[in-house]
């Protein structure tokens, strides 16, 4: 009996594949090297479905040199557990897949159909299954529904999608070459100049992305507002007050604005007429990932990475199609009617689906295409579990967007009443929805604020009750938020739909940006200044975009991965050599900022409750124990101190204790959950225990 081994990307996907392909009974859950896999019988064929846990292999240096050494040009693909500590799960996973491959005759890559999924499966088949990549087939699917998975297995591609896998390999290799060399150059320069270690990093996409934020910060920091004036005017129409706007949106010269006020003060206005315009608003296009992330941020405040995580959970639950897509197309092959009938079972959508099913179904598609997947759409499957609130929100947004794309255009009317006061014209504006069209389905996500004008007749007199000047100033450009920065990256065509959200998270993690309205830190400005001074091309959007294009060419089989990697090395070599030659110069520029960064990382927000000086994490020179001490010790003789856990990596959190308001600390110890505690409450409890122990002396107990 032939045995087929299918590699899925995640355990949930493996279960769905096993369930879909099983023709007799239930899939049997078994385990190999402690890692679960599924065994199913499909006619005469035995199928083993195992899963990876994301990437099991990674790019790493060939020569295992010290972390401080650079440049590094030679690399290999190595098991992740060889390179990163604590990757026990990945190690066991490779062992399990290797053992299963020994008893298998056929191989199928069943990972998600995109660059990363193709790469994950290819590398596992090549390295863990003894070169099975040469004989393996490829399943292509966009949803994890049983019907589509069965179809994908029966009609599997006869060979792996090598061009996609090579494009993925190339991206990882090029990013590794950039990251390792540039980050080591920055870190070592700072270390040698300041004798203090602080991880500084940049990358192929990270550098240009950070530049957007830093340049915006610079624009805001050097902004000089300009004055202008508005006329705040209120008119009385049939006993009701309305704000009207002057025909000149704003006055740039104060004397002209003052003259207008003088002209109109105390006078009545006359209605000259009402202009109405009817226009139609087309339905929205289906969601690609970026549009979904932008809308989820706008409506729910979810960061792009969180939205992607939630969408992936919905995909693994068979509720939506594959979310990592750049397509705005919904081909008829997804089965519009079937999806709508499925959604009709869910109460809030029942009436909408009935309305749509009564008409002709043609979605309003956008221009963007993705060769691998359609736009994000609901599969029509009813949730089998109760979705957590954020999942429910994203699911609702996706369903309503899908329904809206089939809706009719909305018809709106905008009204403008013209009121003449002296020689000045004022406008009273209104708007209303005439036909709801698609906005009915989009519900809370479609703006439909009606402003109805009062009935007005030509020649009607209205009384100006108030007119005064309002001082205004031009505003600096707004700071980026995760949604708008993601859009900027997409417009600049840097990064991919799958990696952009992670890059934004890295900017926060590295301390380059802070807060939701992204503020570039001084460290970010310094790093960007250094890179633009010593290697401007590294943060040049155009250059990064060209590299992206080359990787897309690999996907299309028009360029070879080797050529792009060699080109990258040849390009980076002189840059890195120059950075190395100028280490001390760069180090000088980084010294003060690194020093400040280290100081910030050990200084608490909460001041000393005794003397008000700042509190810092310090280590006793005598006992070598760490504790929180008062920085005012040398000035005020303050001896305030709080104990700290002695083991694990300590981080000061940007959160305060709910009980006493003191800053919380987090301790990370390998193999354990991070421990969050309040040093002050801990000390109070310790002291209480001591007091209790003293009170309950043996004598008292008697």
């Amino acid at each position, binding site marked *: 009996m032939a045995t087929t081994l299918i590699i899925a990307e995640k355990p949930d996907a493996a279960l769905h594949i096993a369930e879909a392909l099983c023709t007799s009974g239930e899939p049997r859950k078994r385990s190999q090297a402690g890692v679960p896999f599924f065994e199913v019988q499909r006619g005469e064929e035995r199928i083993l479905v195992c899963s990876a846990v994301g990437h099991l292999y990674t790019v790493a240096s060939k020569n295992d040199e010290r972390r401080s050494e650079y440049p590094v040009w030679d690399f290999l693909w190595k098991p992740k557990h060889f390179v990163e500590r604590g990757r026990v799960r990945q190690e066991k996973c490779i062992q399990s897949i290797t053992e299963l491959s020994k008893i298998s005759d056929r191989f199928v890559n069943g990972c998600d159909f995109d660059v990363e999924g193709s790469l994950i499966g290819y590398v596992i088949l090549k390295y863990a299954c003894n070169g099975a990549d040469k004989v393996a087939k490829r399943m292509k699917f966009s949803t994890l529904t049983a019907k589509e998975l069965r179809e994908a297995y029966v009609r599997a591609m006869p060979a792996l999608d090598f061009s996609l896998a090579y494009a993925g390999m190339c991206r990882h290799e090029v990013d590794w070459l950039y990251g390792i060399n540039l980050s080591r150059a920055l870190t070592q320069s700072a270390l040698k100049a300041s004798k203090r270690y602080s991880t500084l990093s940049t990358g192929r996409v990270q550098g240009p992305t950070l530049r957007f934020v830093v340049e915006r910060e610079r624009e805001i920091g*050097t902004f000089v*507002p300009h*004055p202008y004036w508005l006329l705040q005017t209120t008119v009385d129409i049939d006993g009701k007050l309305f704000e009207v706007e002057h025909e000149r949106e704003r006055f740039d010269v104060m004397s002209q604005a003052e003259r207008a006020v003088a002209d109109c003060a105390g006078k009545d206005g006359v209605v000259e007429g009402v202009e109405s315009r009817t226009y139609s608003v087309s339905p929205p296009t289906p969601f690609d990932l970026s549009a979904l992330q932008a809308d989820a941020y706008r409506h729910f405040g979810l960061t792009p990475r969180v939205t992607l995580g939630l969408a992936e959970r919905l995909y693994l639950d068979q509720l939506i199609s594959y979310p990592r897509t750049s397509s705005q197309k919904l081909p008829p092959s997804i089965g519009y009617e079937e999806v709508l009938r499925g959604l009709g079972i869910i109460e809030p959508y029942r009436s909408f689906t009935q309305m749509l099913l009564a008409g002709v179904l043609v979605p309003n598609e956008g221009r963007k295409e993705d060769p691998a997947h359609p736009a994000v759409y609901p599969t029509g499957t009813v949730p089998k579990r109760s979705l957590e609130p954020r999942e429910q929100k994203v699911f609702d947004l996706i369903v309503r967007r899908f329904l809206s794309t089939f809706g009719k255009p909305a018809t709106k009317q905008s009204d403008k009443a013209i009121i003449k006061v002296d020689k000045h014209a004022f406008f009273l504006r209104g708007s209303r929805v005439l036909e709801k069209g698609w906005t009915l389905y989009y519900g809370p996500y479609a703006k439909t604020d009606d402003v109805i004008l009062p009935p007005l007749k030509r020649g009607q007199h209205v009384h100006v009750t108030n007119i005064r000047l309002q001082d205004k100033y031009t505003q600096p450009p707004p700071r980026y938020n995760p949604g708008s920065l993601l859009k900027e990256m997409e417009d600049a065509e840097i990064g991919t739909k799958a990696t952009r959200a992670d890059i934004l998270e890295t900017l926060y993690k590295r301390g380059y940006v802070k807060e939701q309205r992204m503020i570039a830190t001084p460290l970010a400005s310094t790093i960007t200044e250094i890179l633009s001074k010593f290697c401007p091309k590294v943060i040049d959007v155009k250059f990064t975009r060209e590299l992206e294009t080359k990787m897309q060419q690999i996907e299309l089989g028009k360029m070879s991965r080797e050529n792009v990697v060699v080109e990258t090395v040849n390009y980076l070599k002189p840059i890195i050599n120059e950075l190395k030659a100028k280490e001390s110069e760069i180090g000088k520029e980084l010294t003060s900022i690194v020093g400040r960064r280290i100081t910030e990382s050990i200084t608490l927000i909460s001041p000393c409750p005794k003397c008000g000086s700042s509190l810092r994490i310090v280590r006793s020179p005598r006992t070598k124990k760490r504790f929180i001490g008062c920085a005012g010790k040398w000035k005020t003789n303050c001896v305030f101190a709080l104990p700290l856990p002695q083991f694990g990596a300590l981080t000061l959190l940007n959160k305060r204790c709910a009980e006493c308001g003191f800053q919380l600390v987090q301790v990370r110890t390998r193999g354990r959950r991070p421990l969050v505690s309040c040093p002050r409450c801990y000390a109070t409890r310790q002291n209480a225990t001591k007091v209790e122990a003293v009170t309950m002396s043996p004598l008292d107990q008697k």
Partner: protein
Amino acid sequence: MSNECSLCERRKDESAQFCPFHLAAAKNLEDSYVKWRDAYGEDFTKELYYAKLEHLDETGQGVKDVLPLLRKSVTR
């Protein structure tokens, strides 16, 4: 001559007074005066201009850093 900007820790060119960030702020400040004078009238002085900008939330931090130095030079 120090290579550090007199307003922050950033490095500056030897011949320059400020770092590139504060230089840009100072340039914007000088360039914008004409617009403010056009808006308020010919008798709008630089002193008044600086005083107004100092208290506006919209004014960039770099500009606010430079303002005291420029105000001093006007007073002299």
